[in-house]
């Protein structure tokens, strides 16, 4: 069974494309994430605030596209984002 993950594309009020992820991201569903990211126009904000788990496989997908995305996440994910170096490559908005 694939780890539950819902990806919903949308737009901010300013028109910026947003991809909202809900669930958990691990090696079983990174392909889905990657495809979703690649089918969305730039610039893109990836909203991870409802993602409860993100492992290194998911981080790799994000890192590969760091130049064209921004991230929004809760403090729960902050350590992995920081440790993976994503915070150095793109803008990460940590809520709370």
């Amino acid at each position: 069974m694939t780890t539950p993950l819902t990806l919903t594309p949308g737009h901010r009020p300013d028109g910026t494309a947003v991809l909202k992820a809900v669930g958990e991201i691990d090696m079983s569903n990174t392909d889905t994430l990657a495809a979703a990211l690649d089918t969305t126009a730039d610039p893109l904000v990836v909203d991870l605030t409802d993602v409860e788990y993100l492992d290194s496989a998911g981080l790799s997908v994000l890192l590969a596209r760091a130049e064209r995305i921004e991230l929004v996440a809760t403090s729960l994910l902050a350590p992995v984002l920081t440790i993976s170096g994503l915070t150095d490559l793109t803008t990460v908005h940590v809520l709370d």
Partner: protein
Amino acid sequence: MARSEDAGRGPLTAGAGVFAADGEVGPDLAVVDWAATPLGPPDDWPQSLRTAVSILLSSRFPMWMAWGPELTFFCNAAYRRDTLGRKYPWALGRPASEVWAEIWDDIGPRIDTVLSTGEATWDEALLLFLERSGYPEESYHTFSYSPLRDDGGAVVGMLCVVSEDTERVVGQRRMASLRDLGSDPSVVRTEQEMLAFAGRQLDRNLRDLPFTLTYLFEDDAVARLAAATGMPAGHPAAPPTLPIDDAAGVWPAAALARGESVLVALDGAPFTGLPAGDWPEPPTHALVVPLLQQGTTPYGFLVAALNRYRPLDDGYRGFVELVAGHIAAGIASARSYQAQQRRAEELAELDRAKTTFFSNISHEFRTPLTLIMGPLAELRTQLGDGDERVREELEVIHRNGLRLGKLVNTLLDFSRIEAGRMQAHYEPVDLAAVTAELASVFRSAIDRAGLSFDVDCPALPEPVYIDRGMWEKVILNLLSNALKFTFDGSIRVGVRCEDTQAVVTVADTGIGVSPEEMPRLFERFRRIENARSRSNEGSGIGLALVQELVGLHGGTITADSALDEGTTFTIRLPFGTDHLPADALAPAADSATGPAAVSSAAAPYVQEALRWLPADPSPEVARDAPPPAADASVTDPARGPAAPVRVLVADDNADMRGYLARLLHGAGYQVDTVDDGRQALEAVRADAPDLVVSDVMMPHMDGLQLVGALRNDPRTAAVPVLLLSARAGEDASIEGLQAGADDYLVKPFAAAELLARVRASVELSRLRNHHARWRTALIDSLQEAFFVCDESGAVVEINTAFTDILGYGPEGLPYTPLHPWWPDAETDPEAHRQVADVFADLLNRNQGSRIIPVTHRDGHRLWISATFNQAQDPDTGRRVVVGTFRDVTAEHYAVQRETALAALSLRLSQAVSLPEALAGALEELKTLWRARRVLAAVFDGGDTPSLTATDPGLRWDDLSERHRTALLGQRQRPSLTPTADHGIGVGITLEHPHGPLVLWLELGDHRPFVDQDQVLLSLLVGHLAQGLTRAHQIDQQRETALALQRAILGPSHLPDGFAVRYEPATRPLEVGGDWYDTVPLPDGRIGIVVGDCVGRGLQAAAIMGQLRSACRALLLQDPSPAGTLMALDHFAATIPGAMCTTVFCGVLDPETGHLAYSSAGHPPGILTHPDGTTRLLDAGHSIPLAIKPGTERPQAECTVPARATLLLYTDGLVERRRRPLTAGIGQASQAVQDGRHAAVDDLAAQVMTRLAPAGGYDDDVALLLYRHPAPLEMTFPAESTQLAPVRKALRGWLNQCDLPPQTIQNILVAAGEACANAIEHGHRHTPGDTVRLRAEAFADNLRLTIADTGRWKPPQPHAHPHRGRGTALMRAMMQQVTITPGPAGTTVDMHTRIA
């Protein structure tokens, strides 16, 4: 005198030259007054006369001459010496008729013839009585007269050339007499005949012996005339008897009786008218000489009248003495012959008398013998179980009665044969069968003598006629004889047929008979002296009787023998009846009576033979019991009255030996007995008695030789000896005393006399040897072996105890090093070295003491405590070593045994299982025996025996073929009997609970395995067998108990998070009255029970088991602690012994930690929080079980917080004497607090250890720990789809652990990365493998372990950049990450603090 002195001797004229030819006679001739003779002065002598004188004087041959009308006398020096004698020089110049006036009648005519005829004369050995010596002397001359012519040729004189023959003639005559005396043709004669013969010979020589008288001493007083020659009967000079002491007797008999010779002048009254013999005048003297007898008074004397015409010179005297000697010899011979004759007659007479006597008395003997033997048989029956001594005496009487009866019967047989009254009944028998039957009677005796017995009696073609009784005696006598003289080898009896004869042989390989003895073998009463035999007893009548009996059968007996090879007796009996008197034939015996039942006559032969054989195979000194009490009359001033006097009795006759022993024993002596002189000598040398009483006649070494041997040895020279002998007479006792015996007693003797002599001998000898004996007694009284060594270490003196302890007696002194008691250097180098060390000390140090092993003379091992001191010999000043040995063998082995047993017991008691017991015992045995290895093979019915060895891992198949064979062989032997197999070890079999066990000890090189070792090994192995049985029983009990425990103690599977411990009070049981239990309930909750029944051991366990099962069932039915306990109250009330059981019963929700519980009088549970605070679960408490069934029970609730630890227990953990329970509970709380960071199972061990009293728990203890939450344990396939559920489960557990969200997130990430790696590798290498995850929380710490079966590659960021990130993430999230790759997979172990 014709010679004219007054005429003077004229001056020597020219004529003197005529006489110059001789310097001796010449001068005398010269001084003769020739002018006064018809010849005128020599100057005027014619030439013929001068020449004749010259010839005369110059000759060395005796000559005289006569010249002129008066036949004037001339002679030369030789004639003067031999013949003229005292007539010189008177005869010179005188007329010949004047010179030889006394024989002129004889020679005158001869001279006339010469002068008238001018022819010479010749006379040989003419007897002439010359008076040249002053008396008429018998002389013999051989001479010739030759004519002398003057210048004109006319015969004017004569020349006589003469040689004297007197000595020759007389000598020949005497020689002839002596020859005649010795010419007696007969060999022996009577004395009278001899004297008559001698007289006839002497009568033939009346010249030398004119008469002789032979007197013989009749007794001390009188000499009797026994013979006379030349003497008429009745002459007063020859009285028929002559009183010896009569000084006035005719002959001096007294002097002759003294052996002196006397010359008697025959003048005076009795000698008038004596016969003259062959002489004209009677003799004037007689020589009386003794008839000498060797060594004693002469037989008598010989009066020899002497030839008055001859001087009594040495020759004459010698002749008379020779005659006397001859007569004396004749008398001696005659008397001796007579004595022999008389003795022979006496012997014959005696023999006849004896035969008559025996024939008369034998019958007489039989009556009293019967009267002795009959009642005796009665007495033996009656008193068979009576007093020992009485029975012994009866046995002696019985045996000797039999022996006497046999002797009497034999003698009677003889007298019958002799008198021709032997009543024989010859019946036809199967001789082979009869003989074999008789021989069989002797088999036991021959077997006992160690001889082989070969009976070869094939049936004969026809019967032989024999008298059964006689034949019995023939065969029994021969067999008895063979046994007596055969010491090794065999005795053979054979029967065969040879032509018309039956031949019976009895052959032995005994001492044989010498050729000189052979001719007399069958003589009656003939015994071979000094023959080596089993007994000196015997009458010498047996073989003679055998010969007589065989003769009566018309048969013959012969013997073939060679010294030291053996003797074969061969009997030949004709078949048929022609040789037997018809009236003595009898028909064949009734066959119904069976063939030749051996008659009772055989018994005495066999009985006697058995008595010759030693009852005890060893010739040791037999000692009787100690004397009842020392006879007050036999006291010893040196040793005091208490010291028993020891007497050694040596006699080959067992009954005499026994009799003497009893006699002396009864008088208070301590008596030892031996069978012969040789044994006596050994016994005395080994331990000198106070007195030896010895028979003279004994085999091997007789009494006299014994005395000699004792006296020749300084150590035994002082031992007094009393000899006993059947030989009466002065000679025998002198012989005994000369040999050195102290006293001599002739058999038969009175008991009182023997005792008196024994006492006297002992006391005398005691006085003599007081000092030496005192010293010896002192030393011998030491219970320790005492010895003295010289400077070289040679043992030169020992005491009795030394011999007792080591077996080496004084007979072997000195014992030079290496002493014979040293252990053998080859077979026991260690023991040898120990002794050598002590010996070196002994020589070099002043004193010392050690315990060492030595070897007894008989080979057994002794342990002695040796102590020694150096000392100075006061006599020689030399350094000696004085020492003692004490036998500590018993102590040594006792200590060794006790030590070994204790060690083995300890090993066995420590063992909690059969294999452990056996292995431990093997180790112990290996140490004890210094063995290379010890094996134990149990034959438990498997294909090969089960092997246990001190070499771990050794299997049966690893053993060498030789070992396997030895072990299999040992298995066949009886239990507990060690068998040494030289070279590979010692084996012993014992019972193992699973089957026979062969134990095998491989001893070190040269380690001897002696008797004591055998005993010890048997003992130890016996102990081991018991120990194994016990261990086996314990094993069984424990297995039962363990099974019981498994059934009743606790659950077979504990839920996660729990740890339990159980410690039984009663070892080795592992169950008791306490228990714990966890019961998984259908709703996921867990029932928890800890209980404690009253009591301990199996009984309590049985109750506990029922309660536990009941409680478990109740919980499953109704998961309510209080309800459960209330139901249990009712249940427990039905079980004896279950009352007052305390129980803690709870129901735990492992998800939430919620706990409902109720306690029936049980100690409170202890809840320890992660921060270390504790809480007692003391609510819900009520009374123990079954006290008031039906009473409502309370129930309490609580929550076990995350990472808190719950401890439930029984009071054995905390209850201690003289200490409040709360103190124990506090201690337990502290232990859990301190261990809250440890894994729960480790904590259980810590608590048990910390709370254990010094000597271990003395009550059952049950303990249950639970830490909340229980560790998470998951196993999942290595697939990525598993990640989410795993994460979910982990997240849930982490929430139970009550952790902050970020911490949970971090742990989830780390765990996720590890799982992802595992899945990735699993996919790649071994798809379908599983991954295992475990998470465990401690008070302030959390541990995660993820293990897969694949291999991780080192991080390769370029190929898989995100993978390297995973590992980095793990390290970032957790405080410690350890990745351990291995061949079976990779394990990631991660820790993080959570407090």
